[in-house]
């Protein structure tokens, strides 16, 4: 079957851990070019949803279609990344002993197998692209800085930059502003909107100010399925949402 137009289509996805349903018949549709915010209380299944999309966790039931055709539940992590789905993890993981430049270089689309990487010289186009990305993710002038020396916020941006370097069609971003200052949070919202001009984005976040700033459609997850969907105003007014999440 093909779902007209949708970039990502989750249908009735269920994931069980030792009898506990982390995802419970979850369905979700993301349109091309869309940015979607996912909110929900701790343990709602947000990270698990990303795990299923990226092939890290297998779904017990249901389908996950990318661009209407490819069923992601049948592919492994590398194949899914290859299709154009990039992911930023909840905990920032950059290569601490590499410079900002090298982190981006390793993430850049390019050779991945042994012999080509052994002999591949640094091409001018690559250098150029890395400069551009550093510009976008607010790390200009830090090319030689060792990633381990960056501030927490800068590491998050570097990781977003590494995602950009892979040039994905869909970017999954898990709690990008956790632990950031207000200024960094605002800058991150702007950064994601900028990125959204050229690709689709799914953002998981607890920070309501940040979600408000993104100003996009919101899905509320609760106990492994979607409780409500719509603008932030719309879902905040939903009594069920207030009960499980906002009202606490």
């Amino acid at each position, binding site marked *: 079957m093909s779902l007209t137009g949708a970039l990502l289509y989750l249908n009735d996805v269920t994931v069980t851990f030792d009898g506990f349903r982390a995802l419970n018949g979850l369905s979700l549709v993301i349109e091309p070019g869309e940015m979607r915010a996912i909110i929900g209380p701790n343990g709602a299944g947000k990270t698990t949803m990303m795990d299923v999309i990226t092939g890290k966790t297998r779904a017990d039931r249901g389908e996950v279609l990318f661009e209407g055709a490819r069923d992601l539940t049948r592919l492994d992590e590398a194949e899914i*990344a290859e299709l154009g789905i990039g992911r930023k993890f909840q905990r920032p993981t950059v290569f*601490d002993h590499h410079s900002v430049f*090298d982190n981006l270089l390793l993430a850049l689309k390019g050779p991945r197998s042994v012999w080509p990487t052994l002999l591949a010289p640094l091409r001018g186009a690559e250098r150029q692209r890395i400069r551009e990305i550093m510009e976008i993710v607010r790390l200009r002038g830090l090319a030689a800085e060792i990633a381990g*020396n960056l501030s927490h916020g800068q590491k998050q941006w570097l990781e977003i930059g590494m995602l950009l370097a*892979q040039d994905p069609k869909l970017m999954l971003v898990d709690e990008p502003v956790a632990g950031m200052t207000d200024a960094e949070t605002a800058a991150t919202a702007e950064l994601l909107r900028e990125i959204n001009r050229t690709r689709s984005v799914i953002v998981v976040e607890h920070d309501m100010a940040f979600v408000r700033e993104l100003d996009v459609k919101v899905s509320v997850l609760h106990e492994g399925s979607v409780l409500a969907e719509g603008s932030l105003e719309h879902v905040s007014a939903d009594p069920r949402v207030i009960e499980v999440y906002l009202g606490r």
Partner: protein
Amino acid sequence: MIARFFLAGFDRRVALALIAVLAIGTVVPLLNLMLPASHVLHVPDYMVALIGKYLTFALLALSVDLVWGYCGILSLGHGAFFALGGYAMGMHLMREIGPRGVYGHPVLPDFMVFLNWKELPWYWHGFDQFWFAALMVVLAPGLLAFALGWFAFRSRVTGVYLSIITQAMTFALMLAFFRNDMGFGGNNGLTDFKDLLGFNLQAATTRAGLLAASSLALALGLLLASAIVGSRLGKVLVALRDAEGRARFLGYPVERYKLFVFTISAAMAGVAGALYVPQVGIINPGEFSPANSIEAVIWVALGGRGTLVGPLIGAGLVNYLKTYLTAAMPDAWLFALGGLFILVTLALPRGVLGLFDRDARRPRTAAVDPIPKAAE
């Protein structure tokens, strides 16, 4: 393109080390051969043998650093690759003896005659040719490392489990080589070598030549290692060392990278062993002893893991100390080694070279977190 490849990883530290290694390889032989024994600067023969031996240990240390320092594979079995290279060379040297053995058999080495063997086992064929032996010096350890790595890395064996497997490998090989019917001379090993490529192994000129060859091999090894480390592949190695899952996620086939560097490194250790054997005049199963592999790791930790140059210094320092102490106070050596290791882990977590490398922002530094992470 070749030149660019080799120059990519070049920095001042590597250049200095290269010059030092090559200087040792030329100056020591000259001072030994050209000056009369009475001269103050004369290097005595035993020193030539000693320094030549240290150079091969330095090459072994370099090979360990390549896998452990840059790829996070804590191999506790590199002594086995060293010994295999040594045996391949030893087999050639045995065949070179020809009819000059004690029993005067035209083909069979003495120990085979002694064991009443009638003909040469199949795996001894070809070793009469130097080129064949030289090939085996690289191939035998390389293929073993490839086979072991193939299974271990594909089944995602990492950390201490991998270290234990490599220890088990060298231990198993030691037991096997102790057996007479393996055909490698049993516990006596291979010895009584006469000459190599027509040069008498007892001659001072040959000894000096072997030292020079060892220094050249070490220099080439350092050049190759720095090129690998400085290439994009080298960056991938450090990346997978620090965050394997992340590297995998970026699309790098992590297992192949490990296999590549593990195999190259094993071949390098084999070359070191091949140069070691003619200089010490014997190879026996004791070289497979698990303690040897552990000692090589200590040299690397002492000198500075993940620095390429540090391990060379570590190998030199520890072995100098060992030579000195085992003569002065034979019982004290192991305690000294253990104490040194503890001291360095606590006081010099980044090794001797860490002392000179205060600038942690240096982009090319792949130096590692203070405590060696065996399991991560």
